[in-house]
């Protein structure tokens, strides 16, 4: 089972897969989103705190009107590897919200100011209310949406992705979705009048009105207030809330890799030394009886 044969076999398997892919490549319901460059891609990728802060602003001022983000807590805003707000800033954000708490000693529910330990409150009391306000479709929770959306890479890209570490299909799709609103083509029948045509949404008829437009949100750091910039910033923010420990993960990964490679090298040379005598001559191994 030498290496050459193994490689040949895989090449043959690949060729077979490729050949089979062509005849049936019909059901391309989804348009491939263009690739963006992200600060958090690749082995040394990190979130850009300024971008996450802008993305959070877009989220808070626009998306939060319809979408919940149940798994995010105010304290997360101040944690390392994220937007890195100060604790005071996170507490100030929390204080802008009213949180339902209780029951108190009188047995009554009451409202109080948010604290950093609280989760972000949802815009609607329940799914039915969210549907009722959105033409019958539910705006999904955003907590892990960046990992819950992807698009098909197809052969041979999915094999190459293993080596290039491309895994930003989620944020690429989200950005494309924000930018993908178009005039409905003449031959397209919209299932419901409250829906919009979006190039990248599977099936194209989306129940979300275009949420962003130029100058919709004011940036304080001088970044361009364009639809494009908003889309990228909010997508990066959504990636962070879906994978809040990405920076720590990649950092630890590098250390682990260095350790394993050095360790493997040492073991390799130890193995060579141990086996040296056997490789030279068969009788060299002393048999302790």
């Amino acid at each position, binding site marked *: 089972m030498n290496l050459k044969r193994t490689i040949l076999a895989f090449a*043959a398997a690949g060729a077979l897969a490729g050949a089979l892919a062509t005849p049936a490549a019909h059901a391309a319901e989804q348009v491939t989103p263009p690739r963006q460059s992200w600060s958090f891609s690749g082995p040394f990728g990190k979130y850009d705190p300024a971008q996450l802060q802008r993305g959070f602003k877009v989220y808070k001022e626009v998306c939060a009107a319809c979408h919940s983000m149940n798994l995010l807590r105010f304290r997360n805003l101040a944690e390392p590897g994220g937007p890195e707000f100060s604790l005071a800033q996170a507490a100030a954000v929390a204080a802008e919200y009213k949180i339902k708490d209780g029951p108190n000693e009188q047995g009554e529910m009451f409202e109080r100011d948010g604290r950093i330990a609280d989760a972000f409150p949802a815009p609607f009391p329940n799914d039915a209310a969210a549907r009722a306000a959105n033409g019958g479709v539910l705006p999904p929770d955003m907590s892990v949406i960046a*990992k819950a959306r992807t698009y098909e890479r197809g052969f041979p890209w999915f094999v190459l992705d*293993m080596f290039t570490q491309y895994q930003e299909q989620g944020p690429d799709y989200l950005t494309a979705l924000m930018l993908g609103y178009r005039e409905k083509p003449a031959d397209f029948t919209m299932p419901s009048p409250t829906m919009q045509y979006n190039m990248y949404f599977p099936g194209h008829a989306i129940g979300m009105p275009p949420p962003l437009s130029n100058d919709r949100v004011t940036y304080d750091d001088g970044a361009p207030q364009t639809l494009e910039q908003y889309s990228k910033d909010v997508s990066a923010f959504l990636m962070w809330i879906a994978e809040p420990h990405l920076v720590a*993960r990649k950092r630890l990964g590098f250390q682990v890799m260095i350790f*394993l490679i050095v360790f493997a090298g040492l073991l390799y040379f*130890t193995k060579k030394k141990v086996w040296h005598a*056997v490789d030279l001559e068969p009788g060299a191994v002393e048999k302790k009886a």
Partner: protein
Amino acid sequence: MSGHSLYQPQSPFMKWMERRLPIAGLIHSSFVVYPTPRNLNYWWTFGGILTFMLGVQIITGIVLAMHYTPHVDYAFNSVEHIMRDVNYGWLLRYLHANGAAMFFLAAYVHMFRGMYYGSYKEPREVLWILGVILLLLIIATGFMGYVLPWGQMSFWAATVITNLFSAIPLVGEPIVSWLWGGYAVGNPTLNRFYSLHYLLPFVIAGVVVLHIWALHVAGQNNPTGVEPRRDTDTVPFTPYATIKDSFLMIVFCILFAWFVFYMPNYLGHADNYIPANPAVTPTHIVPEWYYLPFYAILRAIPNKLMGVVALGASIVILAFLPWLDTSKVRSARYRPLYRQFFWVFVVVCVGLGWLGSKPAEGGYVIAARILTLYYFAHFLIVLPLLGLFEKTKPLPNSITESVLHGDVPLGASAPPPVKT
């Protein structure tokens, strides 16, 4: 070949112990002086890798279980709680999820190794069958584990797979609701899967002990397929096998770490980050990659019952391999025709895997049918006939001879000694 214990306890305590529970002696004879063929190549290190991965899965699994909640309303969020709030919870979960994939990768390499070198042949039939039982057990364990995060794929995979039992005539439906503990996949299903997912790895560990016991009775096969005859054919397990196994295990860990740290969701499915929703069926229900060949076989057959039978048969047939392969020669090294068919078979398995990930329609189904047919033909036609008609190459007289003189028996013009 396990031999008597040559262990000489040194300290008074070990002497005292050895007369009461000779565990040190057992370890000494099994993992120190145990003779292993000197010509084992790196494909033989995957058994050790599997044992290591089983340990990784059990340890990470036990810690995950401390934070996980097996309830339909909380399961998804408890996994997210692990990912977000538990210290290094993301690491535990990614190790466990990718560890399962690595486990299957190692198991498949390990099995193809056995097929290439004829390791299932006399006297290793029971060892091989224990391996097939392990495969069934890891398939079941992996499947139930995948249900636990209670995402869309968890829910629908559970629904599709348990529904297979409904194909059984008469008793099918009652069996399915018995498995579910209700009339659909729901909380009772999740609870029992959790219980079994915790139990089965320990059953696996038990079967691994039998597997290694059987291995130590029959002795390891080797790339020549010729049994060790002389002292010079073997080397003691420690240090020789220990260091070789350790080296490849660390190399394997590099691959494992690559996925865990750099692309932890690559092998998974995005839909499993959507909480389970019985009202919404995903467009494509796709199992994890390591089940794809079997899934392709299942869907290749138009009749549901026959599909389920084919699925079961594709695994069970492995247990009959020792008797389906009629060749007297073990190793594919000396079987020029079998060697070709072996690689065709590997390509067919990979091809089935790829088809399993595609929708069951059009050209894909036709291709899956052809490959399924070939899969079974390999066992039922190719292997029995090859053994009868194949002209095998001459075997070396011993392992030592093959190592020192290449694969030409002495007497023929022997090439100069080669290093392994």
